[in-house]
């Protein structure tokens, strides 16, 4: 919503013809209507231009260069009512706030007409509350305009940015706790419905570890490894058994091959691949 169409010029008297007050069927209305007649087409625009009854009332007062502190309540009320009636006649759904204001004005007007009782000291001016609200509203209407004129980002200010170059060998050492890994495994296993198995897996793990070790040894030696080299006697019988199981396991999985040139000759272990280390993934 543009400022031009929404801001009724605050200071009216003798200060016309700058910005169009509204555009009606292509014709700019540079002067806010000075009497109560508003072209029917303009009425909607007119109403849109106000942020509510206080805004409209403020406009009516300012238009006549009246002091907010000393509103001729009868005249203003009459004008306000005429707007409201006109709008109602056009069958626009008026926001309830406009009608509430109409009632308030009517009440103030009637209270102003009542003769003052002399005894009641410190009687409040019936307009006091209205004046307070009008001023308060005007205060923030102004504050909003001021805010709008502050230099602001995107419109008047632009932040300056430089990019960060790709940082060489930047190791992002993300800390991970084992517990997190285990929780992840638990999740994936539950998803895969693996927990129905009641097997004890601890052994399998040592077996699997050994399988990996055997494969790694093979990979590092880039070819044949003598069978016996895959065992380390200092691990004891247990270690030897696990190594042996691992080799059998790898054989069964066709991950390694055994080769022997003649009976009782040394047995060699090699990766099952035609070529040792090619094309990962």
């Amino acid at each position, binding site marked *: *919503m543009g400022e031009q169409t929404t801001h009724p010029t605050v200071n009216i008297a003798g200060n016309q013809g700058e910005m169009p007050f509204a555009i009606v069927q292509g014709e700019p209305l540079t002067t806010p209507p000075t009497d109560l007649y508003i072209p029917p087409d303009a009425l909607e625009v007119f109403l849109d231009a106000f942020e509510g009854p206080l805004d409209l009332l403020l406009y009516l007062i300012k238009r006549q260069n009246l002091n907010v502190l000393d509103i001729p309540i009868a005249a203003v009320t009459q004008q306000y009512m005429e707007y409201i009636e006109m709008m109602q006649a056009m069958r626009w759904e008026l926001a309830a706030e406009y009608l509430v204001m109409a009632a308030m004005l009517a009440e103030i007007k009637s209270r102003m007409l009542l003769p003052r009782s002399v005894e009641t000291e*410190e009687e409040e001016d019936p307009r006091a509350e209205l004046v307070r609200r009008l001023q308060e509203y*005007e205060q*923030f209407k102004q504050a909003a305009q001021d805010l709008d004129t502050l230099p602001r980002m995107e419109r008047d200010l632009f932040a300056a940015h430089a990019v960060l170059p790709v940082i060489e060998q930047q190791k992002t050492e993300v800390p991970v706790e084992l517990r997190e890994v285990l929780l992840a495994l638990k999740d994936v296993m539950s998803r895969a419905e693996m927990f129905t198995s009641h097997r004890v897996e601890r052994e399998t793990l040592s077996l699997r570890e050994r399988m990996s070790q055997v494969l790694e040894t093979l990979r590092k030696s880039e070819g044949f490894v003598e069978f016996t080299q895959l065992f380390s006697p200092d691990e004891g019988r247990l270690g030897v058994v696990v190594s042996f199981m691992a080799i059998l396991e790898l054989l069964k999985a066709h991950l390694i091959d055994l080769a022997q040139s003649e009976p009782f000759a040394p047995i060699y272990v090699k990766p099952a691949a035609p070529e040792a280390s090619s094309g990962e993934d």
Partner: protein
Amino acid sequence: MERTELIQVLEAAILAADGPLSIERLLRLFEDNDAAPSRADVQSALHALEEACGQRGIELKLVASGYRFQVKQAIARQVARLWEERPPRYSRALLETLALIAYRQPITRGEIEDVRGVAVSSHIVKTLVEREWVQVVGHRDVPGRPALYATTKAFLDYFNLQSLDQLPSLKELQDIDAIHPSLDLGEQPADETPKEAEAEPASTADESVTDTRTKHQD
């Protein structure tokens, strides 16, 4: 750490960051550094950086959440041509709501509506919250426990301010007593304002607008 190097790192960091950087955040850059600069070192380096911008197209600016570099206002219009889209404009309703939150915070939606005399659309509140200009800071302890809104640092940053103090001051309210001194309303504090207020109530508003505008045009 060498002062020259410090200045360079500060410049680069502020330029590389996604938003303004506070001194605290800048200090943390050197935390594990053996020769970590002191707060005073950093402040003095920032000062040097500010001065070094004299001949440059950008300036170092301190806003609510810290330091940022921004295009100098004098050439901002020229640079703005980079973007085809016009900058967003905000409706009066939104600006009035925002102004009320800024000046009266913390404030409920109902209280905003009381002043504006019309309902505040949820759309406006949503926009303000989404832009991170406004946040809910609590709830008023009345039936319905309405949310209390306040402005954020991002709001100040956006409007190039360091603190709420820097907002343009509100136009003074005038006492109706100025007209009818016999009627003591007792509500408003009876300060010295009425005298000046009497002078020309309507014009002050307009003047301040023009002031601000001309100030920021050059």
